[in-house]
């Protein structure tokens, strides 16, 4: 899977260019201007978007495109594939602009190397948003070099030649030369500079923006076929532990059950008697804050995974909870009570508009509610694993990681190696959802492999390891109060939001949410209410808190979208109409004006909070769902929307709850506006998947702690949605909105799902759920 093994035929001798500076305006930019790469030329603006990411971006065709004499086009994908279809989408972007025949396209996975590829951290719903422009430009440059090469051979002006599908045509004479025939000569040409790049017009595109696949029950076409589709259905696709590295050892690790605890001593006599067990060794821990580093513990290394698991069961270990401090007293029930109590008193004010006290005083009606969302584990179907081989001062890693550069650097740090001597091969990820953005498991594997020089070691996390030692989704209490005037209009809004912060993973616990957490739907609350106050009382972290798909948007959307529904009920108004009134007239809210300095890393002048787009998705979802239609007793519709990752989503559920409290989800209608769509088919699949995952958040997901120990250890008690929980029908409605900057896709579908479902349950039953998961609350 290493990228550097083949000799590039095309462009191999052309020096690499980077355009971090000096991207100039000009006519060639016009076609791409809506993707805003023309804005990357002042120091101020470079803080944003792809340019603001570690490693930045490159659009050098040498880095991404290689054409062999036989016409094979190899496209390098430097983003991690975890189910979002990025290997296919990245190839579509380049193949379309280049003019490559899809059947002659191969995708090669990049190793972790920011200095070569630019940023590779596959996180934050950024891959297409940040790379659509650079990758199209890289392909346009390569195509123009092929055209120039053909013009040179035919001794004709380049204006007379044009790339078609996998060939260049001389239009006046009808002569053609294939890409493969031109590659050798093209390699000596200069890479055209930005001002001479000509991107294809939308009408000349074959793949990008085209609707394929199954759309609301109807199969349009299955082309272009998914890059890894055939390998997946035939069992040939290579996920982490599937790599073929020859003779190797397998390991599992017993980790301290409480965050921060350390190894006191262990007895490995019985473990060493298990057939196949080769070695038992301690793994150095990290203490708090753990960042991406291992928790420490005892590793059992064996000739197969089963022997390692049996060996671990035979270990006798004493842990020292002293260094864990009060983490060893962390119990979810009492922690929740403490947060709920704190939510009744004022906290750190993060946004204040109008005079809330006065508004509440004059209110004809007051409403208040407190919402809870528990810890959750990402639980990708492929548990964390990594394979490492160490030879002298060099290490090679094969792992399903979202952030290969961080993997490289942290493994190098652990081993005391030069990062240049650590190669990180990114396999397919069997799901990520934020868990695999932390490379702790690769560091663990490297620690073990150091003892077995020359022999690869595969470290496998079991499901128990995954659920008990995750980087958990935060836990949250959100308390809201509102005042309504005599007409039912909301005139005052108070929101106190409490959750431990992810930043506790990297530094002493700030006990308050930091900018990027507040910016995930809290201080960006879009409602037009005369008096609004947002507060963030303290909450301390006692486990490793980490990213979970959509992150802090989940509790914020859950609370705000539930409460808005409660207000509409209190006012005796239709929920959709009331939501649109809360939003007020269409307007753009500058992020700095509401104290949001995050904005997902994007330039607030380009990506502005747009309430018109919120209205657009609300109207689309409700219209498609036939909101307001007559429904039988026990059946109801629920709505929620949310703006995150600079995209907009609204969800409507149609549900039924029978007399026994059994929930049937008849249908979900999801309206999504991410601006320009590169691969609509995979956008639909992301929305469908987010819908199912959100149903799990609403109904099932919970990790609870007793004395610092996670109480769920496998799928028998950490419940995930099955086909039985899926909606009978999911309809995805993509909003056609090509003239705005591109938004994220992987995460923004998720936040409104749980509140929409809970609002639907209320509509069906009159029962208000404020504590997730719903579990058996409908049966009480």
């Amino acid at each position: 899977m290493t990228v550097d093994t083949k000799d590039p035929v095309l462009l191999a001798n052309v020096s690499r260019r980077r355009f971090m500076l000096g991207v100039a305006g000009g006519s060639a930019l016009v076609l791409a201007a809506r993707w805003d790469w023309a804005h990357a030329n002042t120091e101020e603006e470079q803080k944003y978007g792809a340019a603001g990411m570690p490693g930045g971006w490159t659009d050098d065709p040498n880095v991404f495109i290689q054409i062999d004499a036989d016409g094979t086009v190899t496209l390098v994908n430097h983003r991690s594939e975890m189910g979002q279809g990025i290997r296919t989408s990245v190839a579509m972007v380049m193949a379309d602009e280049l003019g490559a025949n899809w059947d002659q396209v191969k995708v090669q996975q990049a190793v972790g190397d920011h200095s070569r590829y630019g940023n590779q951290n596959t996180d934050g719903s950024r891959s297409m948003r940040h790379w659509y422009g650079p990758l199209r430009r890289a392909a346009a440059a390569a195509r123009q070099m092929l055209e120039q090469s053909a013009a040179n051979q035919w001794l004709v002006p380049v204006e007379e030649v044009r790339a078609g599908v996998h060939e260049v045509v001389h239009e006046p004479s009808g002569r053609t030369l294939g890409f493969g025939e031109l590659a050798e000569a093209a390699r000596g040409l200069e890479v055209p500079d930005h001002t001479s790049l000509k991107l294809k017009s939308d009408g000349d595109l074959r793949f990008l923006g085209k609707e394929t696949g199954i759309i609301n029950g109807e199969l349009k076409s299955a082309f272009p076929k998914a890059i890894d589709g055939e390998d997946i259905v035939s069992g040939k696709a290579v996920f982490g532990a599937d790599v073929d590295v020859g003779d190797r050892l397998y390991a599992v690790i017993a980790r301290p059950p409480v965050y921060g605890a350390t190894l006191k001593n262990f007895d490995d006599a019985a473990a060493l008697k298990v057939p196949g067990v080769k070695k038992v060794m301690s793994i150095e821990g990290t203490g708090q804050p753990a960042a991406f580093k291992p928790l420490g513990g005892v590793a059992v290394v064996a000739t197969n995974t089963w022997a390692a698991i049996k060996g671990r069961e035979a270990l006798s270990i004493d842990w020292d909870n002293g260094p864990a401090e009060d983490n060893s007293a962390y119990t979810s029930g009492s922690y929740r009570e403490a947060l709920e109590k704190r939510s009744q008193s004022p906290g750190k004010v993060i946004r204040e508009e109008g005079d809330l006290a006065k508004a509440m005083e004059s209110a004809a009606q007051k409403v208040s509610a407190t919402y809870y969302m528990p810890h959750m584990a990402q639980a990708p179907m492929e548990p964390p694993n990594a394979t490492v081989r160490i030879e002298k001062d060099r290490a090679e890693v094969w792992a399903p990681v979202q952030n290969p550069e961080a993997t490289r650097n942290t493994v190098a740090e652990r081993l005391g190696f030069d990062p240049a001597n650590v190669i990180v091969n990114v396999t397919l990820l069997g799901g990520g959802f934020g868990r695999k953005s932390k490379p702790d498991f690769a560091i663990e594997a490297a620690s073990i492999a150091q003892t077995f020089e020359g022999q690869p070691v595969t470290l496998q996390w079991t499901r128990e390891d995954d659920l008990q030692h995750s980087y958990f989704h935060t836990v949250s209490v959100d308390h809201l109060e509102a005042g309504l005037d005599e007409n039912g209009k909301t005139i005052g809004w108070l929101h106190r939001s409490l959750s431990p912060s992810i930043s506790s993973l990297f530094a002493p616990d700030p006990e308050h949410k930091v900018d990027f957490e507040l910016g995930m739907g809290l201080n960006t609350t879009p409602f037009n209410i005369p008096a609004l106050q947002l507060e963030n009382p303290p909450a301390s972290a006692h486990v490793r808190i980490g990213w979970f798909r959509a992150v802090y948007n989940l509790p914020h959307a859950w609370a705000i979208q539930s409460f808005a529904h409660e207000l509409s009920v209190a006012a005796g108004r239709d929920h959709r109409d009331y939501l649109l009134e809360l939003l007020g007239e269409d307007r753009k809210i500058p992020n700095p004006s509401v104290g949001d300095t995050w904005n997902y890393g994007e330039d607030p002048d380009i990506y502005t909070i747009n309430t018109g787009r919120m209205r657009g998705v609300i109207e689309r979802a409700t219209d498609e769902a036939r909101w307001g239609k007559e429904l039988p007793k026990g059946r109801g519709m629920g709505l929620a929307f949310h703006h995150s990752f600079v995209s907009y989503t609204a969800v409507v559920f149609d549900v039924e709850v029978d007399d026994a409290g059994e929930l049937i989800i008849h249908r979900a209608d999801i309206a999504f506006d991410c601006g320009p769509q590169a691969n609509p088919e995979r956008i639909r699949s992301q929305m469908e998947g987010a819908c199912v995952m959100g149903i799990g958040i609403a109904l099932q997901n919970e990790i609870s702690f007793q004395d610092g120990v996670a109480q769920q250890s496998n799928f028998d008690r950490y419940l995930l949605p099955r086909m039985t929980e899926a909606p009978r029908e999911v309809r995805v409605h993509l909003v056609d909105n090509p003239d705005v900057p591109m938004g994220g896709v992987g995460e923004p579908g998720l936040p409104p799902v749980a509140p929409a479902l809970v609002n639907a349950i209320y509509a069906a039953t009159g029962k208000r759920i404020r504590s997730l998961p719903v579990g058996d609350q409908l049966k009480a």
Partner: protein
Amino acid sequence: MVTLNINGEQYELDVPDDMPLLWAIRDVVGLKGTKFGCGIAQCGACTVHMDGTAIRSCTTPVSAAAGEITTIEAMEQDPVGKRVQQAWLDLGVAQCGYCQGGQIMNATSLLKQNSAPSKDEIINAMAGNLCRCGTYNRILVAIERAAGGEEQA
């Protein structure tokens, strides 16, 4: 020594009797298409066929795996399996793909026993297979498509 018949090949393995078939297939025989997901028969990622019927290889000890074992790698030689695989491709079912081998094994087993299952029969038969990406709606349509293909054949 344990003798396993996997995809038509005989394997003599020096493994303990209680080793789950999953680890014998993956770590000893070296076929990596069968996946580890939970180890307690809750997720279905490890599904293989024994004598044509879906079983969970993570909780089936090799001592109980005396029948003909078929893994995802051999599904394209099975007419029903091949049709299921094609339906998966036609509908773009897979997202990350990790669970899909097990899903296909289970769906193929279902269609071998019931060539025209109802929606409810499909849902009940597939309820043991988790997909964290949430591809259930497409899986359902794909199974219906694969079943319909048989009627036309």
